[in-house]
Protein backbone atom coordinates (compact mmCIF):
# COMPACT_ATOMS: atom_id res chain seq x y z
CA UNK A 1 0.00 0.00 0.00
CA UNK A 2 2.06 2.82 -1.27
CA UNK A 3 0.36 6.18 -0.98
CA UNK A 4 3.20 8.35 -2.05
CA UNK A 5 4.37 8.65 -5.57
CA UNK A 6 7.50 10.41 -6.60
CA UNK A 7 5.82 13.79 -6.65
CA UNK A 8 6.28 16.27 -3.87
CA UNK A 9 3.16 16.96 -1.88
CA UNK A 10 4.12 20.45 -0.79
CA UNK A 11 4.77 22.80 -3.67
CA UNK A 12 7.60 25.23 -3.05
CA UNK A 13 8.23 28.52 -4.76
CA UNK A 14 10.73 28.55 -7.60
CA UNK A 15 14.40 28.48 -6.75
CA UNK A 16 15.71 32.04 -6.45
CA UNK A 17 17.53 33.42 -9.39
CA UNK A 18 20.41 35.82 -9.33
CA UNK A 19 18.07 38.81 -9.12
CA UNK A 20 18.39 38.82 -5.35
CA UNK A 21 14.80 38.09 -4.30
CA UNK A 22 15.96 35.41 -1.92
CA UNK A 23 15.20 37.30 1.26
CA UNK A 24 11.55 37.81 2.15
CA UNK A 25 11.67 39.88 5.29
CA UNK A 26 13.60 40.56 8.45
CA UNK A 27 12.57 41.38 12.01
CA UNK A 28 14.57 42.67 14.93
CA UNK A 29 12.99 42.43 18.38
CA UNK A 30 14.42 43.50 21.70
CA UNK A 31 13.99 41.43 24.85
CA UNK A 32 10.68 43.09 25.70
CA UNK A 33 9.13 42.09 22.41
CA UNK A 34 9.30 45.56 20.86
CA UNK A 35 9.83 45.34 17.14
CA UNK A 36 12.85 47.54 16.51
CA UNK A 37 13.01 46.96 12.81
CA UNK A 38 10.95 45.34 10.13
CA UNK A 39 12.30 45.13 6.60
CA UNK A 40 10.34 43.65 3.79
CA UNK A 41 11.72 42.70 0.40
CA UNK A 42 9.33 40.19 -1.03
CA UNK A 43 6.05 39.46 0.66
CA UNK A 44 3.10 38.98 -1.69
CA UNK A 45 0.89 37.52 1.03
CA UNK A 46 -0.23 39.78 3.85
CA UNK A 47 -3.14 38.77 6.02
CA UNK A 48 -2.55 40.76 9.17
CA UNK A 49 -1.83 44.35 10.13
CA UNK A 50 1.85 44.94 10.76
CA UNK A 51 1.33 45.27 14.51
CA UNK A 52 -0.49 41.95 14.73
CA UNK A 53 2.06 40.38 12.46
CA UNK A 54 4.90 41.42 14.76
CA UNK A 55 3.07 40.21 17.83
CA UNK A 56 2.39 36.86 16.21
CA UNK A 57 5.99 36.49 15.16
CA UNK A 58 7.28 37.30 18.61
CA UNK A 59 4.77 34.92 20.17
CA UNK A 60 5.78 32.17 17.81
CA UNK A 61 9.45 32.59 18.67
CA UNK A 62 8.72 32.72 22.37
CA UNK A 63 6.61 29.58 22.29
CA UNK A 64 8.97 27.68 20.02
CA UNK A 65 11.78 28.49 22.41
CA UNK A 66 9.88 27.15 25.37
CA UNK A 67 8.96 24.10 23.29
CA UNK A 68 12.55 23.35 22.33
CA UNK A 69 13.72 23.98 25.90
CA UNK A 70 11.21 21.47 27.18
CA UNK A 71 11.76 18.96 24.42
CA UNK A 72 15.56 18.96 24.65
CA UNK A 73 16.38 15.24 24.65
CA UNK A 74 19.92 15.69 25.89
CA UNK A 75 19.31 17.24 29.29
CA UNK A 76 17.39 15.82 32.17
CA UNK A 77 16.62 19.10 33.96
CA UNK A 78 14.26 21.03 31.76
CA UNK A 79 12.06 23.01 34.11
CA UNK A 80 8.44 23.64 33.40
CA UNK A 81 6.85 24.36 30.08
CA UNK A 82 5.98 28.01 29.52
CA UNK A 83 8.31 29.50 32.11
CA UNK A 84 10.17 32.33 30.36
CA UNK A 85 13.75 31.48 29.55
CA UNK A 86 16.57 33.98 29.79
CA UNK A 87 18.54 34.53 26.61
CA UNK A 88 21.00 31.68 26.26
CA UNK A 89 19.21 29.60 28.85
CA UNK A 90 17.87 26.20 27.85
CA UNK A 91 17.86 24.63 24.42
CA UNK A 92 16.95 27.17 21.75
CA UNK A 93 16.61 26.81 17.98
CA UNK A 94 18.28 28.46 15.02
CA UNK A 95 15.91 27.83 12.14
CA UNK A 96 12.76 26.20 10.94
CA UNK A 97 11.59 25.43 7.47
CA UNK A 98 8.15 25.14 5.90
CA UNK A 99 7.37 24.40 2.29
CA UNK A 100 7.21 28.13 1.46
CA UNK A 101 9.88 29.77 3.59
CA UNK A 102 12.74 29.29 5.96
CA UNK A 103 13.03 31.28 9.13
CA UNK A 104 16.47 31.75 10.64
CA UNK A 105 16.64 32.97 14.19
CA UNK A 106 19.37 34.34 16.40
CA UNK A 107 19.22 35.68 19.90
CA UNK A 108 22.05 37.67 21.38
CA UNK A 109 22.86 37.40 25.08
CA UNK A 110 21.42 40.90 25.48
CA UNK A 111 18.06 39.63 24.27
CA UNK A 112 18.10 41.07 20.75
CA UNK A 113 16.29 38.68 18.42
CA UNK A 114 17.17 38.69 14.74
CA UNK A 115 14.81 36.95 12.36
CA UNK A 116 15.51 36.47 8.70
CA UNK A 117 12.87 34.90 6.48
CA UNK A 118 14.18 33.49 3.21
CA UNK A 119 13.47 30.99 0.48
CA UNK A 120 12.98 27.48 1.94
CA UNK A 121 16.01 26.10 0.18
CA UNK A 122 18.55 28.50 1.60
CA UNK A 123 21.31 26.92 3.60
CA UNK A 124 22.55 27.63 7.09
CA UNK A 125 22.29 31.36 7.79
CA UNK A 126 23.69 31.46 11.30
CA UNK A 127 26.83 33.27 10.20
CA UNK A 128 24.82 35.72 8.11
CA UNK A 129 22.72 36.57 11.13
CA UNK A 130 25.85 37.14 13.13
CA UNK A 131 27.01 39.49 10.43
CA UNK A 132 23.73 41.38 10.50
CA UNK A 133 24.04 41.59 14.26
CA UNK A 134 27.48 43.04 13.69
CA UNK A 135 25.91 45.64 11.38
CA UNK A 136 23.35 46.43 14.07
CA UNK A 137 26.07 47.06 16.60
CA UNK A 138 28.04 49.18 14.16
CA UNK A 139 25.28 51.29 12.71
CA UNK A 140 22.65 51.39 15.43
CA UNK A 141 24.17 50.86 18.82
CA UNK A 142 27.17 53.02 18.09
CA UNK A 143 24.95 55.80 16.82
CA UNK A 144 24.76 58.42 19.57
CA UNK A 145 21.37 59.61 18.35
CA UNK A 146 19.75 56.24 18.87
CA UNK A 147 17.83 55.57 22.09
CA UNK A 148 17.93 51.86 22.97
CA UNK A 149 14.54 50.17 22.89
CA UNK A 150 13.06 52.45 20.23
CA UNK A 151 12.40 51.55 16.62
CA UNK A 152 15.47 51.87 14.46
CA UNK A 153 15.37 54.76 12.03
CA UNK A 154 18.71 54.63 10.37
CA UNK A 155 18.92 55.02 6.63
CA UNK A 156 22.48 53.81 6.64
CA UNK A 157 21.64 50.64 8.52
CA UNK A 158 18.64 49.91 6.32
CA UNK A 159 20.68 50.39 3.20
CA UNK A 160 23.52 48.19 4.35
CA UNK A 161 21.17 45.43 5.45
CA UNK A 162 19.26 45.61 2.16
CA UNK A 163 22.46 45.41 0.24
CA UNK A 164 23.78 42.55 2.31
CA UNK A 165 20.62 40.49 2.01
CA UNK A 166 20.46 41.17 -1.71
CA UNK A 167 24.05 40.03 -1.99
CA UNK A 168 23.08 37.00 0.03
CA UNK A 169 20.53 36.21 -2.62
CA UNK A 170 23.08 36.40 -5.40
CA UNK A 171 25.58 34.37 -3.51
CA UNK A 172 23.00 31.84 -2.49
CA UNK A 173 21.68 31.39 -5.97
CA UNK A 174 25.17 30.47 -7.04
CA UNK A 175 26.15 28.53 -3.97
CA UNK A 176 22.85 27.00 -3.03
CA UNK A 177 24.25 23.51 -3.11
CA UNK A 178 27.70 24.28 -1.74
CA UNK A 179 28.98 24.70 1.77
CA UNK A 180 28.01 28.00 3.38
CA UNK A 181 31.59 29.14 3.76
CA UNK A 182 31.04 32.17 1.51
CA UNK A 183 29.71 34.12 4.46
CA UNK A 184 33.13 34.48 5.97
CA UNK A 185 34.37 35.96 2.72
CA UNK A 186 31.57 38.47 2.81
CA UNK A 187 31.97 39.26 6.46
CA UNK A 188 35.62 40.04 6.05
CA UNK B 1 -20.17 -4.48 -25.55
CA UNK B 2 -21.06 -0.99 -26.52
CA UNK B 3 -18.35 1.12 -27.99
CA UNK B 4 -15.91 -1.70 -28.59
CA UNK B 5 -13.40 -0.79 -31.26
CA UNK B 6 -14.06 2.90 -31.04
CA UNK B 7 -11.23 4.74 -29.43
CA UNK B 8 -13.34 7.38 -27.79
CA UNK B 9 -11.72 10.15 -25.84
CA UNK B 10 -13.50 11.11 -22.68
CA UNK B 11 -12.91 14.65 -21.59
CA UNK B 12 -14.24 14.05 -18.14
CA UNK B 13 -12.79 11.28 -16.07
CA UNK B 14 -16.23 10.59 -14.63
CA UNK B 15 -17.62 9.77 -18.05
CA UNK B 16 -15.09 7.07 -18.64
CA UNK B 17 -16.50 3.58 -18.18
CA UNK B 18 -15.14 1.63 -15.28
CA UNK B 19 -12.61 -0.73 -16.69
CA UNK B 20 -12.79 -4.38 -15.87
CA UNK B 21 -9.44 -4.02 -14.29
CA UNK B 22 -7.74 -6.77 -12.44
CA UNK B 23 -10.00 -9.42 -11.04
CA UNK B 24 -8.75 -8.76 -7.59
CA UNK B 25 -10.08 -7.11 -4.50
CA UNK B 26 -7.98 -4.47 -2.84
CA UNK B 27 -6.74 -5.61 0.52
CA UNK B 28 -7.50 -2.19 1.96
CA UNK B 29 -11.06 -2.23 0.70
CA UNK B 30 -11.53 -5.64 2.24
CA UNK B 31 -9.91 -4.58 5.50
CA UNK B 32 -12.12 -1.51 5.80
CA UNK B 33 -15.26 -3.45 4.98
CA UNK B 34 -14.41 -6.09 7.52
CA UNK B 35 -13.56 -3.43 10.07
CA UNK B 36 -16.98 -1.88 9.54
CA UNK B 37 -18.63 -5.27 9.92
CA UNK B 38 -16.94 -5.78 13.26
CA UNK B 39 -17.72 -2.25 14.42
CA UNK B 40 -21.35 -2.55 13.43
CA UNK B 41 -21.76 -5.81 15.25
CA UNK B 42 -19.95 -4.46 18.24
CA UNK B 43 -22.61 -1.80 18.58
CA UNK B 44 -25.33 -4.42 18.57
CA UNK B 45 -24.02 -6.58 21.38
CA UNK B 46 -23.21 -6.24 25.03
CA UNK B 47 -20.77 -9.07 25.50
CA UNK B 48 -17.91 -10.68 23.63
CA UNK B 49 -19.44 -14.12 23.23
CA UNK B 50 -22.38 -12.51 21.49
CA UNK B 51 -20.05 -10.58 19.19
CA UNK B 52 -18.24 -13.77 18.32
CA UNK B 53 -21.52 -15.48 17.56
CA UNK B 54 -22.69 -12.65 15.32
CA UNK B 55 -19.45 -12.63 13.37
CA UNK B 56 -19.72 -16.37 12.94
CA UNK B 57 -23.26 -16.03 11.68
CA UNK B 58 -22.14 -13.43 9.17
CA UNK B 59 -19.46 -15.85 8.01
CA UNK B 60 -21.93 -18.70 7.82
CA UNK B 61 -24.01 -16.85 5.25
CA UNK B 62 -20.91 -16.27 3.17
CA UNK B 63 -19.85 -19.88 3.48
CA UNK B 64 -23.20 -21.17 2.33
CA UNK B 65 -22.89 -19.17 -0.87
CA UNK B 66 -19.25 -19.74 -1.44
CA UNK B 67 -19.78 -23.46 -1.51
CA UNK B 68 -21.70 -23.11 -4.75
CA UNK B 69 -18.94 -21.00 -6.18
CA UNK B 70 -16.36 -23.59 -5.24
CA UNK B 71 -18.40 -26.30 -6.87
CA UNK B 72 -18.72 -24.23 -9.98
CA UNK B 73 -15.03 -23.52 -10.15
CA UNK B 74 -13.93 -27.07 -9.55
CA UNK B 75 -11.83 -28.32 -12.44
CA UNK B 76 -13.39 -30.69 -14.93
CA UNK B 77 -10.67 -33.33 -14.66
CA UNK B 78 -11.41 -34.12 -11.07
CA UNK B 79 -14.46 -36.22 -11.80
CA UNK B 80 -12.89 -39.40 -10.50
CA UNK B 81 -15.60 -41.56 -9.11
CA UNK B 82 -13.51 -43.74 -6.86
CA UNK B 83 -12.58 -41.01 -4.47
CA UNK B 84 -12.31 -42.29 -1.05
CA UNK B 85 -14.52 -40.51 1.32
CA UNK B 86 -11.62 -39.52 3.41
CA UNK B 87 -9.87 -38.08 0.43
CA UNK B 88 -12.90 -36.10 -0.49
CA UNK B 89 -13.30 -34.88 2.97
CA UNK B 90 -9.68 -34.00 3.13
CA UNK B 91 -9.83 -32.19 -0.16
CA UNK B 92 -12.93 -30.55 1.01
CA UNK B 93 -11.21 -29.11 4.00
CA UNK B 94 -8.25 -28.24 1.89
CA UNK B 95 -10.35 -26.17 -0.42
CA UNK B 96 -12.05 -24.50 2.42
CA UNK B 97 -8.75 -23.76 3.93
CA UNK B 98 -7.81 -22.22 0.65
CA UNK B 99 -10.85 -20.15 0.64
CA UNK B 100 -10.74 -19.30 4.26
CA UNK B 101 -7.35 -17.80 3.79
CA UNK B 102 -8.83 -15.81 0.90
CA UNK B 103 -5.86 -16.62 -1.16
CA UNK B 104 -5.05 -18.92 -3.99
CA UNK B 105 -2.79 -20.94 -1.79
CA UNK B 106 -3.43 -23.66 0.65
CA UNK B 107 -3.51 -22.64 4.27
CA UNK B 108 -0.24 -22.91 6.10
CA UNK B 109 -1.26 -26.27 7.32
CA UNK B 110 -4.21 -28.50 7.63
CA UNK B 111 -3.87 -31.01 10.39
CA UNK B 112 -5.90 -33.79 11.65
CA UNK B 113 -6.62 -33.64 15.30
CA UNK B 114 -4.54 -36.13 17.19
CA UNK B 115 -6.83 -36.59 20.09
CA UNK B 116 -10.10 -36.98 18.30
CA UNK B 117 -10.87 -38.73 15.03
CA UNK B 118 -13.41 -36.13 14.01
CA UNK B 119 -11.34 -33.00 14.60
CA UNK B 120 -9.45 -31.02 12.00
CA UNK B 121 -7.42 -27.90 12.35
CA UNK B 122 -6.61 -25.24 9.82
CA UNK B 123 -3.66 -23.20 10.99
CA UNK B 124 -2.81 -19.79 9.63
CA UNK B 125 0.21 -17.77 10.57
CA UNK B 126 -1.66 -14.62 9.76
CA UNK B 127 -5.31 -14.80 8.98
CA UNK B 128 -6.20 -12.22 6.39
CA UNK B 129 -9.01 -10.76 8.45
CA UNK B 130 -6.64 -10.36 11.37
CA UNK B 131 -3.89 -8.71 9.33
CA UNK B 132 -4.52 -5.22 10.69
CA UNK B 133 -6.42 -6.00 13.86
CA UNK B 134 -5.07 -5.64 17.36
CA UNK B 135 -7.38 -7.04 20.00
CA UNK B 136 -7.69 -4.73 23.01
CA UNK B 137 -6.46 -6.29 26.23
CA UNK B 138 -9.86 -6.12 27.86
CA UNK B 139 -11.37 -8.38 25.21
CA UNK B 140 -9.35 -11.38 26.28
CA UNK B 141 -9.11 -14.25 23.83
CA UNK B 142 -11.58 -12.82 21.36
CA UNK B 143 -10.55 -13.56 17.78
CA UNK B 144 -12.01 -11.94 14.67
CA UNK B 145 -11.24 -15.23 12.98
CA UNK B 146 -14.70 -16.15 14.25
CA UNK B 147 -15.85 -14.80 10.91
CA UNK B 148 -13.65 -17.25 9.03
CA UNK B 149 -14.77 -20.02 11.33
CA UNK B 150 -18.30 -19.09 10.33
CA UNK B 151 -17.41 -19.36 6.66
CA UNK B 152 -15.92 -22.80 7.18
CA UNK B 153 -18.98 -23.88 9.11
CA UNK B 154 -21.18 -22.51 6.35
CA UNK B 155 -19.37 -24.47 3.67
CA UNK B 156 -19.28 -27.66 5.70
CA UNK B 157 -22.84 -27.44 6.84
CA UNK B 158 -24.15 -26.89 3.36
CA UNK B 159 -22.02 -29.70 2.01
CA UNK B 160 -23.66 -31.95 4.53
CA UNK B 161 -21.03 -32.11 7.20
CA UNK B 162 -22.46 -30.32 10.17
CA UNK B 163 -19.63 -29.24 12.40
CA UNK B 164 -18.75 -26.93 15.19
CA UNK B 165 -16.05 -24.55 14.03
CA UNK B 166 -14.14 -22.21 16.29
CA UNK B 167 -11.20 -19.85 15.90
CA UNK B 168 -8.40 -19.74 18.47
CA UNK B 169 -5.18 -17.89 18.96
CA UNK B 170 -2.24 -20.23 19.47
CA UNK B 171 1.00 -18.63 20.66
CA UNK B 172 4.09 -19.42 18.60
CA UNK B 173 7.57 -19.47 20.11
CA UNK B 174 9.73 -16.55 19.12
CA UNK B 175 6.91 -14.69 17.40
CA UNK B 176 5.09 -11.58 18.52
CA UNK B 177 1.89 -12.66 16.92
CA UNK B 178 0.03 -15.80 17.81
CA UNK B 179 -1.19 -17.90 14.93
CA UNK B 180 -4.85 -18.54 14.40
CA UNK B 181 -6.18 -22.07 14.36
CA UNK B 182 -9.60 -22.89 13.00
CA UNK B 183 -10.80 -25.95 14.84
CA UNK B 184 -13.35 -28.10 13.05
CA UNK B 185 -15.21 -30.66 15.07
CA UNK B 186 -17.56 -32.75 12.97
CA UNK B 187 -20.89 -33.74 14.35
CA UNK B 188 -21.56 -37.49 14.70
CA UNK B 189 -23.71 -37.84 11.61
CA UNK B 190 -21.17 -35.99 9.50
CA UNK B 191 -18.62 -38.76 9.48
CA UNK B 192 -20.06 -41.23 7.05
CA UNK B 193 -18.87 -44.70 6.44
CA UNK B 194 -16.58 -44.80 3.45
CA UNK B 195 -17.73 -48.15 2.06
CA UNK B 196 -21.38 -47.35 2.05
CA UNK B 197 -20.69 -44.02 0.46
CA UNK B 198 -18.65 -45.59 -2.32
CA UNK B 199 -21.42 -48.07 -3.07
CA UNK B 200 -23.97 -45.36 -3.09
CA UNK B 201 -21.89 -43.32 -5.40
CA UNK B 202 -21.51 -46.02 -8.02
CA UNK B 203 -25.20 -46.57 -8.00
CA UNK B 204 -25.80 -42.93 -8.33
CA UNK B 205 -23.44 -42.65 -11.27
CA UNK B 206 -25.04 -45.44 -13.22
CA UNK B 207 -28.50 -44.13 -12.76
CA UNK B 208 -27.84 -40.53 -13.32
CA UNK B 209 -25.13 -40.57 -15.94
CA UNK B 210 -27.09 -38.61 -18.50
CA UNK B 211 -28.07 -36.11 -15.92
CA UNK B 212 -24.51 -35.55 -14.93
CA UNK B 213 -23.50 -34.92 -18.46
CA UNK B 214 -25.96 -32.14 -18.73
CA UNK B 215 -24.98 -30.46 -15.54
CA UNK B 216 -21.26 -30.32 -15.82
CA UNK B 217 -20.64 -28.61 -12.60
CA UNK B 218 -22.25 -31.51 -10.85
CA UNK B 219 -19.96 -33.98 -12.47
CA UNK B 220 -17.26 -33.54 -9.93
CA UNK B 221 -17.01 -35.50 -6.78
CA UNK B 222 -17.93 -32.51 -4.78
CA UNK B 223 -21.22 -31.80 -6.43
CA UNK B 224 -22.15 -35.41 -6.29
CA UNK B 225 -21.36 -35.55 -2.68
CA UNK B 226 -23.54 -32.61 -2.09
CA UNK B 227 -26.29 -34.21 -4.05
CA UNK B 228 -25.84 -37.51 -2.34
CA UNK B 229 -25.97 -36.13 1.07
CA UNK B 230 -28.86 -33.90 0.33
CA UNK B 231 -30.97 -36.65 -1.19
Amino acid at each position, binding site marked *: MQFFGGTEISPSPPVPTASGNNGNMMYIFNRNGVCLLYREWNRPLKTLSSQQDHKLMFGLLFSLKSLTAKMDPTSAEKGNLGVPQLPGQGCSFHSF*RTNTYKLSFMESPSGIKLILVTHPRTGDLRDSLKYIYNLYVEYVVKNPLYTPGTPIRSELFNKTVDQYVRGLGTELAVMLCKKPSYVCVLAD | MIGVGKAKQYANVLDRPIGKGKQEVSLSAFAFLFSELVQYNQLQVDNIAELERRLEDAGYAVGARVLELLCHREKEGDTAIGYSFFHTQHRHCDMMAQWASHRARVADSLEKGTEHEDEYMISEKELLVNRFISIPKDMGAFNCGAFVAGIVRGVLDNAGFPAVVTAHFVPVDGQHRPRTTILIKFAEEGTLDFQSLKKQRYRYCNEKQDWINRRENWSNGFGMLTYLLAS
Partner: protein
Amino acid sequence: MAAIYSLYIINKSGGLIFYKDYGSAGRMDTNDSLRLASLWHSMHAISQQLSPVSGCFGIELLQADTFDLHCFQSLTGTKFFVVCEPGTQHMENLLKHIYELYTDYVLKNPFYEMEMPIRCELFEISLAQAVQKERVSLLGR
Protein backbone atom coordinates in the same frame (compact mmCIF):
# COMPACT_ATOMS: atom_id res chain seq x y z
CA MET C 1 23.43 6.78 21.17
CA ALA C 2 20.00 6.96 19.78
CA ALA C 3 19.58 8.81 16.53
CA ILE C 4 15.85 9.04 17.06
CA TYR C 5 14.76 10.40 20.43
CA SER C 6 11.00 10.30 20.32
CA LEU C 7 7.92 10.13 18.16
CA TYR C 8 4.64 11.99 18.55
CA ILE C 9 1.36 11.65 16.68
CA ILE C 10 -1.27 14.33 17.15
CA ASN C 11 -4.79 14.35 15.82
CA LYS C 12 -6.33 17.17 13.84
CA SER C 13 -7.48 19.04 16.92
CA GLY C 14 -4.07 18.98 18.55
CA GLY C 15 -4.58 16.12 20.96
CA LEU C 16 -1.71 13.74 21.49
CA ILE C 17 -2.78 10.27 20.40
CA PHE C 18 0.58 8.54 20.42
CA TYR C 19 3.91 9.19 22.11
CA LYS C 20 6.92 6.98 22.17
CA ASP C 21 10.27 7.72 23.73
CA TYR C 22 13.40 6.05 22.37
CA GLY C 23 15.86 7.23 24.96
CA SER C 24 15.79 10.96 25.72
CA ALA C 25 17.47 12.17 28.85
CA GLY C 26 14.94 12.98 31.54
CA ARG C 27 11.62 11.30 30.91
CA MET C 28 8.63 13.45 30.24
CA ASP C 29 5.41 12.78 32.07
CA THR C 30 2.11 12.43 30.29
CA ASN C 31 1.01 15.96 31.09
CA ASP C 32 4.14 17.47 29.61
CA SER C 33 3.94 15.48 26.42
CA LEU C 34 0.27 16.42 26.02
CA ARG C 35 1.06 20.10 26.47
CA LEU C 36 4.02 19.95 24.12
CA ALA C 37 1.84 18.32 21.49
CA SER C 38 -0.84 20.97 21.66
CA LEU C 39 1.80 23.70 21.72
CA TRP C 40 3.33 22.25 18.58
CA HIS C 41 -0.09 22.09 17.00
CA SER C 42 -0.64 25.82 17.46
CA MET C 43 2.93 26.75 16.48
CA HIS C 44 2.43 24.79 13.31
CA ALA C 45 -0.74 26.74 12.57
CA ILE C 46 0.86 30.11 13.33
CA SER C 47 3.81 29.36 11.06
CA GLN C 48 1.33 29.05 8.21
CA GLN C 49 -0.08 32.50 8.93
CA LEU C 50 3.35 34.10 8.88
CA SER C 51 4.27 32.79 5.47
CA PRO C 52 5.37 35.51 3.04
CA VAL C 53 3.77 33.63 0.14
CA SER C 54 0.54 31.66 -0.04
CA GLY C 55 0.24 27.91 0.08
CA CYS C 56 2.12 27.27 3.30
CA PHE C 57 1.47 23.97 5.08
CA GLY C 58 3.38 24.63 8.25
CA ILE C 59 6.74 23.70 9.73
CA GLU C 60 8.45 20.67 8.24
CA LEU C 61 11.76 20.90 10.03
CA LEU C 62 12.75 22.70 13.20
CA GLN C 63 16.47 22.87 13.88
CA ALA C 64 17.15 23.34 17.56
CA ASP C 65 20.53 23.50 19.24
CA THR C 66 20.50 19.90 20.39
CA PHE C 67 17.97 18.21 18.14
CA ASP C 68 16.07 18.33 14.87
CA LEU C 69 12.32 18.01 14.76
CA HIS C 70 10.85 16.64 11.54
CA CYS C 71 7.12 17.01 11.11
CA PHE C 72 4.84 15.46 8.54
CA GLN C 73 1.24 16.50 8.27
CA SER C 74 -1.18 14.30 6.37
CA LEU C 75 -3.81 15.94 4.21
CA THR C 76 -6.38 15.10 6.87
CA GLY C 77 -4.51 17.11 9.50
CA THR C 78 -2.93 14.34 11.53
CA LYS C 79 0.61 15.30 12.40
CA PHE C 80 3.54 12.95 12.89
CA PHE C 81 6.79 14.26 14.23
CA VAL C 82 10.09 12.77 15.28
CA VAL C 83 12.72 14.32 17.47
CA CYS C 84 16.17 13.20 16.35
CA GLU C 85 19.83 14.08 16.47
CA PRO C 86 20.77 17.21 14.51
CA GLY C 87 21.45 16.45 10.90
CA THR C 88 19.75 13.04 10.82
CA GLN C 89 18.80 12.25 7.24
CA HIS C 90 15.86 10.45 5.65
CA MET C 91 13.38 11.32 8.37
CA GLU C 92 10.74 12.35 5.81
CA ASN C 93 10.69 8.80 4.49
CA LEU C 94 10.47 7.36 7.97
CA LEU C 95 7.53 9.64 8.78
CA LYS C 96 5.72 8.65 5.62
CA HIS C 97 6.34 5.03 6.44
CA ILE C 98 4.92 5.59 9.91
CA TYR C 99 1.89 7.22 8.31
CA GLU C 100 1.47 4.14 6.19
CA LEU C 101 1.65 1.93 9.27
CA TYR C 102 -0.92 4.18 10.92
CA THR C 103 -3.35 3.83 8.03
CA ASP C 104 -2.86 0.07 8.07
CA TYR C 105 -2.72 -0.99 11.66
CA VAL C 106 -4.67 1.78 13.35
CA LEU C 107 -7.32 2.93 10.92
CA LYS C 108 -8.17 -0.56 9.70
CA ASN C 109 -8.54 -1.85 13.23
CA PRO C 110 -12.21 -2.08 14.13
CA PHE C 111 -11.41 -1.55 17.80
CA TYR C 112 -9.76 1.84 17.25
CA GLU C 113 -11.88 4.90 17.88
CA MET C 114 -11.03 7.81 15.62
CA GLU C 115 -9.05 10.67 17.17
CA MET C 116 -8.50 8.70 20.36
CA PRO C 117 -5.17 7.54 21.83
CA ILE C 118 -3.68 4.67 19.86
CA ARG C 119 -3.51 1.38 21.67
CA CYS C 120 -2.84 -1.12 18.93
CA GLU C 121 -0.37 -3.89 19.52
CA LEU C 122 0.27 -4.49 15.83
CA PHE C 123 1.02 -0.83 15.25
CA GLU C 124 3.55 -0.81 18.03
CA ILE C 125 5.22 -3.96 16.79
CA SER C 126 5.58 -2.75 13.23
CA LEU C 127 6.60 0.70 14.41
CA ALA C 128 9.35 -0.78 16.57
CA GLN C 129 10.55 -2.72 13.55
CA ALA C 130 10.56 0.38 11.35
CA VAL C 131 12.48 2.45 13.90
CA GLN C 132 14.93 -0.37 14.51
CA LYS C 133 15.53 -0.68 10.77
CA GLU C 134 16.07 3.06 10.49
CA ARG C 135 18.56 2.94 13.35
CA VAL C 136 20.53 0.14 11.77
CA SER C 137 20.68 1.97 8.46
CA LEU C 138 21.70 5.19 10.21
CA LEU C 139 24.52 3.39 11.95
CA GLY C 140 25.60 1.87 8.67
CA ARG C 141 25.88 5.24 7.00
